C-alpha cells in the first residue's frame, strides 16, 4: 500500500530530514513509526500525505507515484487517506457532528449519507449521542476520538496518525490504540508515528525506527525486496 524507495528529503534550509529511506507497508498492515522528535517521523508522514515531495527517491501510495502526481490530483488522492493529528485539530466553533462530517462534505456526499456515516463513525469510537456537543465540552480523550472518527468516516484505505496519544495518559492511550486496532482488523492500513516506546512495546506490531532521518530498524514485514509488490 505504501512504498518508499531510497527516499531523501532535504528542506530548503539545507536540513536533511530523511536520508535514503526504503520500506513498505503492505495493505491492511498496522505499523508503528518511532524515533526521537526531529528524527524525521513527521517528514515521513508529510511525504505520504503529499504535503511535501521527496528530494530523491520514490514515494508510492495506493499505486500512485507521489513525486509524479500533478498538484491538481493531490486533493483526490488525499480523499483516500485519513489523518489523525497529535492535537486532534478539531474546529472548536463547530459541533462534533460537523467536525466528523468534514471529509464527507468535501467528498460531495449527500445529506442523508453524511448523517448515516457520521452516526456510524461516532458509534465506532464510542461517542454515540455526542454529535451535537461542541469539542470544548469534551475531555482530551474524547476529543481525540472525534479526531479519529473524522479520519475514518469516509472509509479511507490508509489511516495515518502523528502522535495520537501525545497528550493522553497511558490508560486513555491504550483506549485510542485499541480503536486503531479495530480499524486494522477490518483491513485498513494504519501507520502510527509515536515516541511512546512503552506503548509500542505493549502491542506487537512491526516498528519502523528512525534515527536522524535514517531507518535503523526495518521489520521483515516492511522490508523492500527487489521487485516486491506493496
Amino acid at each position, binding site marked *: 500500500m505504501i512504498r518508499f524507495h531510497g527516499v531523501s528529503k532535504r528542506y530548503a534550509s539545507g536540513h536533511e530530514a530523511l536520508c535514503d529511506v526504503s520500506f513498505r507497508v503492505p495493505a491492511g498492515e498496522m505499523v508503528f513509526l518511532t524515533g526521537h522528535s526531529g528524527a524525521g517521523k513527521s517528514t515521513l508522514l*508529510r511525504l505520504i500525505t503529499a*504535503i511535501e515531495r521527496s528530494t530523491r527517491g520514490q514515494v508510492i501510495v*495506493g499505486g500512485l507515484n507521489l513525486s509524479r502526481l500533478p498538484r491538481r*490530483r493531490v486533493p*483526490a488522492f488525499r480523499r483516500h487517506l485519513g489523518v489523525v493529528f497529535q492535537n486532534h485539530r478539531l474546529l472548536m466553533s463547530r459541533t462534533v457532528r460537523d467536525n466528523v462530517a*468534514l471529509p464527507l462534505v468535501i467528498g*460531495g456526499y449527500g445529506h442523508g449519507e453524511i448523517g448515516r456515516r457520521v452516526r456510524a463513525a461516532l458509534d465506532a469510537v464510542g461517542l454515540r449521542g455526542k454529535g451535537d456537543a461542541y469539542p470544548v465540552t469534551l475531555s482530551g480523550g474524547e476529543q481525540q476520538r472525534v479526531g479519529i472518527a473524522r479520519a475514518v468516516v469516509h472509509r479511507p*484505505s490508509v489511516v495515518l496518525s502523528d502522535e495520537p496519544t501525545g497528550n493522553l495518559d497511558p490508560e486513555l492511550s491504550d483506549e485510542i490504540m485499541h480503536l486503531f486496532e479495530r480499524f486494522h482488523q477490518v483491513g485498513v492500513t494504519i501507520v502510527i508515528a509515536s515516541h511512546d516506546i512503552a506503548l509500542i512495546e505493549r502491542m506487537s506490531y512491526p516498528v519502523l525506527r528512525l534515527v536522524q532521518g535514517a531507518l535503523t530498524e526495518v521489520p521483515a514485514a516492511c522490508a523492500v525486496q527487489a521487485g516486491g509488490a506493496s
Partner: protein
Amino acid sequence: MNSTFDLDRAPKRRLKSWLTGHLQSLFSSLGLLFRSPGAALLTSAVIGVALALPTGFLLLLNNAERLGRGWEGNTEISVFLRMEVGDGEAARLAREIALRRDVDRVRVVSRAAALEEYKQRSGFTDVIAAFGDRNPLPTVLLVEPPRGIEALANVAGLVASLRAMPEVDLVLYDLKWLRRFEGIVGTLRRGTMILASLLALGVILIVGNTIRLTIDGRREEILIAKLCGATDAFIRRPFLYSGLWHGMVGGLIAAILVGVGFELLRGPVAHLAELYHSEFALTTQGSSTILRLVMIGGALGLGGAWAAVARHLRIEETA
C-alpha cells in the same frame, strides 16, 4: 481492500457533488453572515454608500439631460418676415423652405394669429390695445430642423441662408446655451464615471479586505480541509459566495439610499418645475436601477472576494 487508489469520480457523481458543494457553500456562507449580521451589514453599508454616490449623480445627470432634450424639441428657428410681406407670399415662402433637405417642417404664424395669441397672454392686453387697430406683429415662420446631433451641426448653415432671404427681417435661433448645457452635462458625466471607477475600486478593496480577514480567521479550517482532500475550488467557494452576498446587499442598500435621496429632492424639484411651467419630474428609473445596482454590487463583491482568495488562499499545509 483495494490497494490502488482511483482518483476519478464517476461523471454523474461529479456533477452531483459539484451541485451539493455549491448549495452547501451557498447556505454556509449565508449562515456565516447571519451569525455576525452587524459586521456583515457594516461592510455592506460601506459598499452601499460607495455605490449610492455615483449612482445618484448619474441619475441626476440623466434627469438633467432629459430636461435638456425636452427643450431641444423646441429648437425651432423663428423667422420674422418683413412687415410688407403678405399672408400669401408667406405661405409660398413657407412651402419653399419646407422643401429644403435640412428642414423638417415649417409652420406659419400669421399676423392675425400672432395678435390673437398675444391677446390671450395676460399682461399684454394693454400693450396691444395701445396700438389700436394696427397690428404691430410680423408674420413668423417657425422652421423646424430635423432632430439629432448631425442636424444640429448643420443648423448654422440653414440659419445663414434664411437670413440671406430678402423677405426675412430677423432670424432668431439660439442653441448656444443648449450646447453649453450639454457640454456641462457631458463633463459632469465623465467626472462621475471617474468617481464611479474609483469607488468601484474601493468596493473591491473593501470586500477584499473583509474576505482576507475571514480567511485569516478560518486558517485552521482551511488547512484541515486541505488535508482532508478539499480542492482549491471547494475552499474558495464559500468566500466567493460571501463576497457576492456582501456586494448584493450593498447594492440593495445603495438602491435604498438613492431612492430616499430622490424622494427628498422630488418636492423641491416639482416646485421649481412649476415655477417654469414645466411638467418635469425626477425619475430614478425604478426597478431597473435597483436590479442594476444589485448586479453591479454582486459583481464587485465577487471581484473583491476573488482578488482576496487568489492572494491569500495560497496557504500551504506546511504551517
